[in-house]
């Protein structure tokens, strides 16, 4: 027994020592971020960390190339790119803010801004702009909360209407529909063609419910409608009701591609590329993707149809790659320099061209606009209308979309009326404000 016990302790201590050794040979770059950096100006090199999901979506090496240009233009500042998967970015940013490990410069989505401001994780950009003497008239948009800017959209991906020219002409429709009646008629004719082809596609997955923003509410905004009143929810108004009833009528007419209730946005482009969907509201970023994947597909870009007889400016939905600076960054001035760099006319045009989106700088013009018909058409739509995304800057925007989506799914499945749905949505939205 004596041997047994001491042997036990020996074995135990061996395990502990092993564990400590493993801990000792810690992995590379294990130094904690942000704490050991000198504040700029002391002659040392300031390293900025930029966390985003953009790098994997851009051509290989493109974002790094831009950062190298920035480093060359700003001696004493180095930029470290931290890339993560888009789907997890929101959680990771919240966790990072809670643990104090957020990067200096952060990529943001408009739907998160209000809640990050509440958490105190992102800093007031208006104040930074003021102290840097920045002229903000060149910014196409600034996402504000309580009157101060917290996020600046760097690249805007608009969502125009994509139409499959071949399917349309086969259905006897000569041009993309311009109002709701025409759209419904075209969708019906395309679906009547039979086979696996449907007129429209509607992704309503509850996991990432931006179908509500891009494919449902967009109809409302395209006709100048609003879902808010004085910044408060007004979901039961006549415009929204008309929109929802229209979507329901499309659903009941059987023109919507199957699998809608759990379909994600990324599925839309695959179905369209394979010629199984006649018309879809899609991200401009997909133009080159579709061309690459199916060179034979002929498609057009047009504005989202408005309600019949509408002649005003049409709102066009968009998603942005936004940028902000974290509150606990120790290098806010340098961080602002990076933001400034990305937002200036030349670089903003470069980033937009690489990403196939529209610039956040009013004067920048991406290269693809001049030499590409489809992009030119999209740019014209962009200029003729106005970027509309009422969800940006709202508190718990994701949750608002989700609760609306759940109610919509109930209605589409025939379990409740449109009025009940809108009232339920209004009630649950009001609770969040």
């Amino acid at each position, binding site marked *: 027994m004596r041997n047994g016990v001491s042997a036990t302790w020996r074995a135990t201590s061996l395990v502990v020592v092993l564990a400590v050794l493993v801990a000792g040979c810690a992995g590379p770059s294990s130094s904690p971020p942000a704490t050991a950096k000198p504040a700029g100006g002391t002659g040392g090199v300031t390293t900025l960390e930029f966390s985003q999901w953009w790098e994997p979506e851009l051509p290989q090496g493109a974002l790094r190339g831009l950062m190298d240009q920035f480093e060359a233009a700003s001696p004493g500042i180095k930029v470290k790119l931290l890339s993560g998967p888009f789907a997890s970015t929101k959680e990771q940013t*919240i966790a990072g803010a809670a643990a104090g490990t957020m990067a200096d410069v952060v990529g943001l989505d408009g739907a998160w801004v209000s809640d990050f401001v509440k958490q105190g994780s992102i800093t007031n950009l208006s104040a930074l702009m003021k102290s840097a003497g920045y002229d903000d008239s060149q910014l196409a948009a600034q996402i504000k909360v309580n009157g101060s800017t917290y996020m600046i959209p760097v690249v805007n991906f608009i969502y125009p209407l994509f139409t499959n020219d071949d399917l349309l002409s086969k259905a006897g429709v000569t041009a993309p529909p311009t109002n709701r009646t025409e759209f419904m008629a075209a969708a019906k004719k395309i679906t009547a063609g039979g086979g696996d082809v449907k007129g429209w596609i509607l992704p309503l*997955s509850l996991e990432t419910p931006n179908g509500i923003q891009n494919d449902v509410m967009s109809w409302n905004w395209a006709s100048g409608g609003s879902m808010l009143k004085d910044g408060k929810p007004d979901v039961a108004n006549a415009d929204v009701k008309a929109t929802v009833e229209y979507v329901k009528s499309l659903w009941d007419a059987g023109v919507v*591609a199957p699998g809608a*209730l*759990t379909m994600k946005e990324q599925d839309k482009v695959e179905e369209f590329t394979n010629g199984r969907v006649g018309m879809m509201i899609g991200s401009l970023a997909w133009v080159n993707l579709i061309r690459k994947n199916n060179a034979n597909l002929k498609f057009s870009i047009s504005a989202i149809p408005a309600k019949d007889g509408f002649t005003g400016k049409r709102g066009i939905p968009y998603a942005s790659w936004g940028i902000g600076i974290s509150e606990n960054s120790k290098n806010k001035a340098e961080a602002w320099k990076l933001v400034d760099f990305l937002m200036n006319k030349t670089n903003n045009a470069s980033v937009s061209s690489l990403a196939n989106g529209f610039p956040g700088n009013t004067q920048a013009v991406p290269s693809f606009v001049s030499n590409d018909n489809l992009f030119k058409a999209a740019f014209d739509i962009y200029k003729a209308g106005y970027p509309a995304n009422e969800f940006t800057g709202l508190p718990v925007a994701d949750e608002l979309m989700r609760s609306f*989506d*759940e109610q919509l799914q109930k209605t589409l499945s025939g379990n409740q009326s449109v009025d009940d749905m809108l009232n339920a949505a209004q009630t649950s939205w009001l609770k969040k404000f």
Partner: protein
Amino acid sequence: MLNVVEAAPRQTLWRGLTRRAVGPTGRRLEPYAFLSPTLVILLILMLYPIGAVIRYSVMNNVILEKAPVFVGVANYVGILTSPDFWVAVRNTSFFTAVSVLAHLVLGMVFALLLNNSLLGPLAKPVFRALFILPWLFTVAVIAVLWRLLLNPNGVINYVLQGAGLMDSKVEWLANPSIALYAVTFINIWSGYPFYMMSLLAGLQGISSDLYEAARVDGAGGLQRFTHITIPQLRPIIVSIALLDVIFTTQQFALIWLTTGGGPINVTEMLSTFTYKLAFNQYEFSVASASAVIIFVLSMVLAFFYVRSQRMAD
């Protein structure tokens, strides 16, 4: 005798800490010595986070608010009176019960198939490798793969339609009446190898003498199975069933990435319910209360498991 007893204390004075454990008290400390690495790791890493979760659950709006306030059981009451919670409980119960049962049955069937002496030496490794395939992939991939397969325009519908078993496309994941079954099926597919392997390993440990003796006594195949195999495997079956219940209750990514809790709320589980509270509504304190409730439910099960272990001793 006396000399030995007197000698021991003197020796311990010399030999330091480890040897002090020797003597009548030594035996009592042995099990703790064996358990010490486990306890050290678990205590250091889990004590604070679990404590934090419990603390959050009785406060209001942590993480997001700078000054959280103590609210007692308000969060718990809120959850227990929320209809969404009970929907999640119902779905999770169905999902877990069916999954665990099917895992057990499938795992046992496959383990028996693989353990069969009729299989040649070449066939065995091939089939073992084939049967274990579902287990090799990360959950995100399984979710994406099955969404691809079960896509209304995907290969499963194509094959079933082609074989004449269906006449129109089935929306496996998007139809509110079918989605829960589909998701359960995916979970069964991805989880049975765990049982299969554990049971297969367990089957190896059953002495063939027992089977021989039974055969000599005239026991048929089914009787050998129920009277030898099952009782011999009982400790393992109970262990993995308990673990599987706990794992399946926690299963989040599979549901989230396939259906997001939808359509409507037919695949809403306790895990997705909790996640949405935390990262969509930013109600971390309410989410923590939900976590504690799930934790307590699982502990009740763990308690029953430990009791059954004691009975087996």
